[in-house]
């Protein structure tokens, strides 16, 4: 049995990598991938805690998050693709049309 703290630590590590990726990378695709890392980090924690407490709820919730992540990725990539078609690149620091 893998100790639960290890699992939580792994989840936290992946979440942190994802967070840093979202915050510092400019490429939109990388940012989306980092977003996936964020979600999956949380998934690990959910699944790990589910095992730890002998409850299926964690895994079930993780499954929901996976489904949501799939749809989010689909929509997100579609948006990025369409943006790319117009500007021929996909950098986040160019994307400031919502500037106040």
């Amino acid at each position, binding site marked *: 049995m893998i100790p639960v703290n290890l699992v939580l630590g792994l989840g936290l590590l992946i979440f942190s990598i994802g*967070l840093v990726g*979202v*915050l*510092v990378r*400019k490429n939109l695709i990388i*940012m989306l991938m980092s977003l996936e890392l964020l979600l999956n980090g949380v998934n690990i924690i959910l699944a790990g805690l589910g095992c730890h407490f002998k409850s299926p709820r964690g895994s079930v919730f993780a499954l929901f998050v996976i489904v949501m992540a799939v749809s989010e990725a689909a929509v997100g990539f579609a948006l990025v693709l369409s943006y790319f078609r117009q500007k021929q690149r996909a950098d*986040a*620091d160019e*994307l*400031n*049309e*919502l*500037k*106040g």
Partner: protein
Amino acid sequence: MFAWIPVFPLVGVLLNGLLGIKYFSKRAVSTVAVGAVGLSFAASVASFVRLLGSTEPVVVKAYFTWIPASLVRVFGGRLQSLAIDFSFRYDSLAAVMTLVVTGVGLLIHIYSVGYMARDRGYARFFAYLNLFTFAMLILVLGANLAVMFIGWEGVGLCSYLLIGFWFSKDTAANAGKKAFITNRVGDFGFILGIGLLVSALGTVDIGEIAAGIGGGLLGRGTATAAALLLFLGATGKSAQIPLYTWLPDAMEGPTPVSALIHAATMVTAGVYMVARMHVLYSFSGTALDVVALVGALTAVYAATMGFVQNDIKRVLAYSTISQIGYMFIGLGVGAYSAGIFHLMTHAFFKSLLFLAAGSVIHALSGEQDMRKMGGLKARLPVTYPVFMAGALAIAGVPGLAGFFSKDEILAAAFASGHYAVWVLGLAGAGMTSFYIFRLIFLTFYGRERAEPEARHHLHESPRIMTAPLQVLALLAIVGGYAGLPHVLGGRNWFAAFLRSSTGISDHPLAASAEIMLMLFSAGVSLAGIWAAYVVYVKKEGLPAERLAARFKAVYRLVSRKYFIDEIYDRVAVRGTLALGRLSAWFDARIIDGLVDGSGWLVRKFSSASMAFDEAVVDGAVNGIGRAHRAVSRGLRRLQTGYVYNYALAIVIGLVILVSLAVTIF
């Protein structure tokens, strides 16, 4: 049947007025106009004949409802339904009036064909003349005061239009205005009288008014007030004191107009009206005395002015005023039929005199001043005898029309005990024969004083003008025999005929007294003629000049018409103008000042409120906006649009929340 009488002149007006002025030849115009009056006269005769054979002395016919019924509360609180019909009343009085109006009117229309032959306003003239005839017929046929009033105003309008017929002449236009405005004063009284009768009896129908008076519904004071108000209208229309001043000036109109309107018909409308309302006047009594007194004073007063006028038509105008005074004497002493009798004979001889005067004026190329006439007797072989016939008739020479009618009036005045009125009337009779023969002698006798130019063109008038003169002369001679008194072997048919509409004077006089009175008045009139003969023929104007020189002040007073025109001008005309100016000043200064002042106040107030609006209200609104903008200028820096900035914000928020959660739990 009688309803047709006014229809023909109306058709004449429409044809001549709408089409004639532009499209008709002169011959067509005169055919239409004369034909219309001729048919009207024929209808009058037919109606008259039918009335003679009928057992029904009064026919009242309503044609349509003019003013629908409504309830009015009359004096004494009674509720009365007042409806005014357009209705005609045909009785002996209306018969006499329609015959006079259409008969004399027809002759004057024929005369006008010759007199106006070379006038540019030919069709307009005949349209007016027909319109006048129409209005006059409405006036005499109206069965109630409202319908009568239409005619009353209609003849006033036509009088105005015809006096000012040559409107490019200032004097004519002014004379028209004067006549119209003076009549307004009288008509004001007339309409007030109608209003008083409506509020007292709730009706304007002549028959119903008489019935109401008979039924004791009218107080004596109210009756007197109403009668006097109506009489004020009559003094305006019939040129009596105090509203007579317009008639002499009305001579500015064409002579046939003077004859028809200002001698024969319209000016007698007042006489007709009083006779029509005789029940009211008899009931009042006081009003009747006023009528008699005004008539007697006017008869003498106007005659004095006839002495000194030099304009041939003006002499006749004053004579008309004086003769209408006689008619009012007749009415005022209760002898209504005598007044109407004089109205009829006067219509004959006065229109004759006017038309003959017109013929003289025509012959002298428009000269009206008698000082520039004289010696025309031989030059005007047709005009002279008819003029003489008219003069003898008006002077009251026994056997002619004027004698019978004037005598009947004076006899009635004497018999009813109005001795003062009788004396005035007798004096007026003497003066009448003096001034009319002064006119005759100045015009037809003595030296020829005409201007050489006029003398050169001197000619007798054409046949179409002299023929009506001869017919009128015949009427002036024989017209009186319709009322031949009993003492002279007659039956006084005229009074008997009028009995059904005006009643009969109930002051019998002994036959001997009547004969005495007749001799008296005949003597007075012959004396007047003799005096005129002495003054103007025998010594050729010398005594007249001497008298004028001796009584310079009196002569001046009379020849300037007692300065009444000047007084009216000062008091009425200038008074009105001054009042107008005062009102204008009041309007300009006070009313306009108030209006301008309130406008000024409103403007001041609104500019203050605008300042408040701009400073405070707009300031608040703009201030709010400005504050928002200032705040948002700062806040919008936060919205960089960069996704990672937002992500960072989310993370920071998350960290804060988590650390809060950790600290609390």
